[in-house]
């Protein structure tokens, strides 16, 4: 049986990320000297409590997937700590890491690409079992069937190949695979981006059900802001390798603080012609700069509608400007944040009570 993890009510966070950096080196020159880096993730810190869902949003290429992958040490992080359930995953020895893997899993963006086209459903789902258990074939099959039941896949499909399923079903396979080892923490890397609207809801509902049933903790990466609003408790907005704003969901959606978050939210299409006609979008000019060569000051200064001189020279830090709301922007003077720690803790607890 799938087991629910006890969700500790007073919590040291399950996942604690500190100053995570992931730089992909660029080599050039005759001698392949290391001449630069793609700063895909450049100093990101956040934490996720057990049973919580943190939404991670941002434009394509801003480093969301990289964060997710570095968290699970699919990439070797350049710097920073990733403490998951008390152990620093970023520095674990290979064998320990392998042992750690069952508790942290991933659901991938493209359900088609993340399933080996030559493996049957049951082999795909039992792959983690092959790796981490020495169960008999029959026991594995039982477990696979149970997993299939719980993600809503008919048991009779066990011997089919991925291409024989619809997108939503494929994503269910992916989720079943992630659940196979009873993980506590799942990184969902745009699990719905490749799906049809009518299917997206199914998958999101499934993820929510599973979370409820098993007490899972999610990092939910997406660029669909309305879906993130639906599923996440807190949301981090990323821009070019850095977190621009990290706020509780409702606060963010009702009153985004960072100019980028604001623009992002304004760009969302509300499926209602009446509202759509009234709304004014903030249209950002230009393209995202290359992460290999980010602007000198604030990463967003090249496109920011509210840009100031200071933005072009000084990188703003991510600071708590309101209770529980962290923003990296010069618009919000640092002193506002001073001494607000106590208050934030209070609201945080309060909020947990509300959402769960």
């Amino acid at each position, binding site marked *: 049986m799938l087991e629910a993890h006890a969700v500790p009510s007073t919590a040291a966070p399950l996942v604690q990320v500190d100053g995570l950096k992931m730089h992909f080196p660029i080599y050039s020159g005759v001698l392949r000297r290391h001449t630069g880096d793609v700063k895909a993730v450049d100093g990101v810190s956040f934490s996720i409590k057990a049973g919580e869902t943190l939404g991670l949003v941002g*434009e*394509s290429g801003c480093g969301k997937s990289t964060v997710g992958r570095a968290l699970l040490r699919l990439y070797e992080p350049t710097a920073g700590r990733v403490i998951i359930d008390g152990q620093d995953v970023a520095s674990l020895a290979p064998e320990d890491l392998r042992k750690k893997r069952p508790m942290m899993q991933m659901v991938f963006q493209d359900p088609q690409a993340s399933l080996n086209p030559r493996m049957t459903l049951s082999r795909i789902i039992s792959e983690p079992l092959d790796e981490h258990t020495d169960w008999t074939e029959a026991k594995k099959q039982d477990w696979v069937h149970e997993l299939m039941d719980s993600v809503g896949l008919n048991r009779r499909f066990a011997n089919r190949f991925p291409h024989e399923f*619809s*997108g939503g079903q494929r994503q269910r396979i992916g989720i079943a695979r992630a659940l196979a080892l009873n993980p506590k923490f799942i990184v969902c890397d745009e699990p719905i981006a490749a799906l*049809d*609207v*009518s*299917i*997206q*809801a*199914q998958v*999101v*509902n499934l993820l*929510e059900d599973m979370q409820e049933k098993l007490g899972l903790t999610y990092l939910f990466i997406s*660029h669909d*802001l*309305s*879906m993130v*609003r*639906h599923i996440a408790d807190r949301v981090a907005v990323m821009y070019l390798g850095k977190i621009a704003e990290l706020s509780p969901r409702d606060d963010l*959606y009702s009153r985004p603080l960072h100019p980028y978050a604001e*623009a*992002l*939210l*304004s*760009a*969302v*299409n*509300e*499926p*209602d*012609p*009446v*509202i*759509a*006609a009234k709304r004014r*979008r903030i*249209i*950002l000019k230009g*393209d*995202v700069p290359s992460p290999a060569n980010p602007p000198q000051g604030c990463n967003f200064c090249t496109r920011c509608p509210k840009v100031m001189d200071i933005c072009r020279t000084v990188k703003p830090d991510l600071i708590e400007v309101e209770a529980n709301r962290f923003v990296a922007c010069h618009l919000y003077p640092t002193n506002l944040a001073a001494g607000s720690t106590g208050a934030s803790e209070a609201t945080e607890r309060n909020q947990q009570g509300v959402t769960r």
Partner: protein
Amino acid sequence: MADQALPVLEVRGLKTVFRTRGGEIHAVNDVSFHLERGELLGVVGESGSGKSVTMMSLIRLLPSPPADIRGGEVLLNGKDLLKMDAESLRQVRGAKVGFVFQDPMTSLNPVFNIGSQIMEPLRAHMGMTKAQAETRAVELLELVGIPDARKRLKAYPHQFSGGMRQRVMIAIALACDPDVLIADEPTTALDVTIQAQILELVKDLRQKLGMSIIWITHDLGVIAGIADRVMVMYGGQVVEQAPVRELFANPQHPYTRALLKTIPKISGARDARLKVIEGQPPIMGGVPVACPFRERCEYRHAPCDSINPARRAIDGQPVGRGHDVACHWTAPATQEVAHA
């Protein structure tokens, strides 16, 4: 030019079938619609409902085999595109009908520079010299908001971001001032902020050029923002068609209604749980003899299993002109779908 009162494009009873090893797939079944001059017609429907196939059938872009257009008429300014010979059709493509495809990453030829790809239709249809075409290409790029256009002509697609490539695609489609622009999910692959740029651009262009546009998407949010009229497709058929506000305010078809409910809102109250449409899309293995949506329909009743419903008007106007729906079930008069 034809009579201003006539629609630019009139499609009647279009049928497209794919012959595959596993049998025939009836991807488009008896689809009829029209496009008024200067209008933007939104087409929505889930993946596989036949949106792309319908539009590509119009100018016979589907590879044949396997595709086979079994019947219907496609009147562009009164001339039937389905009966044209290859050469006249070629002269319509790109000149009278511009096409923008879904995936900007793969729709441009990676080995030719942007300039030559924009200039191609200009030279093929308008007989422009190289210099003329170049001038026009620069204009077009500026029109779609690409700064420093002259320099960018020499750039290759891979040097452009997705949003810029999609603008290039739009520039190509607009090159010969077509009467109709068909955009097949042009923003689906793009980021929200870039998507916003493109949508803004299209609104702009419509104002400037007064173009007739068909805009395919499965994002109802996009439709709500830009369309004049909406056509909902399901299982290779048009299931509902109405002016945009009417559709959102008063959806008639159970599929439309369900679709509107599945989408989480960015504002307003947050639902505890998303509505879903259970079940699978239909397998379009033959000429439909029953309602394609019946398996998933919450209002399913006897006739649904034996009769494929015809489109019927619900606001007294002729079918196709006002609000019509293809369903045996009649929605209660009260507005059920609430919006904030």
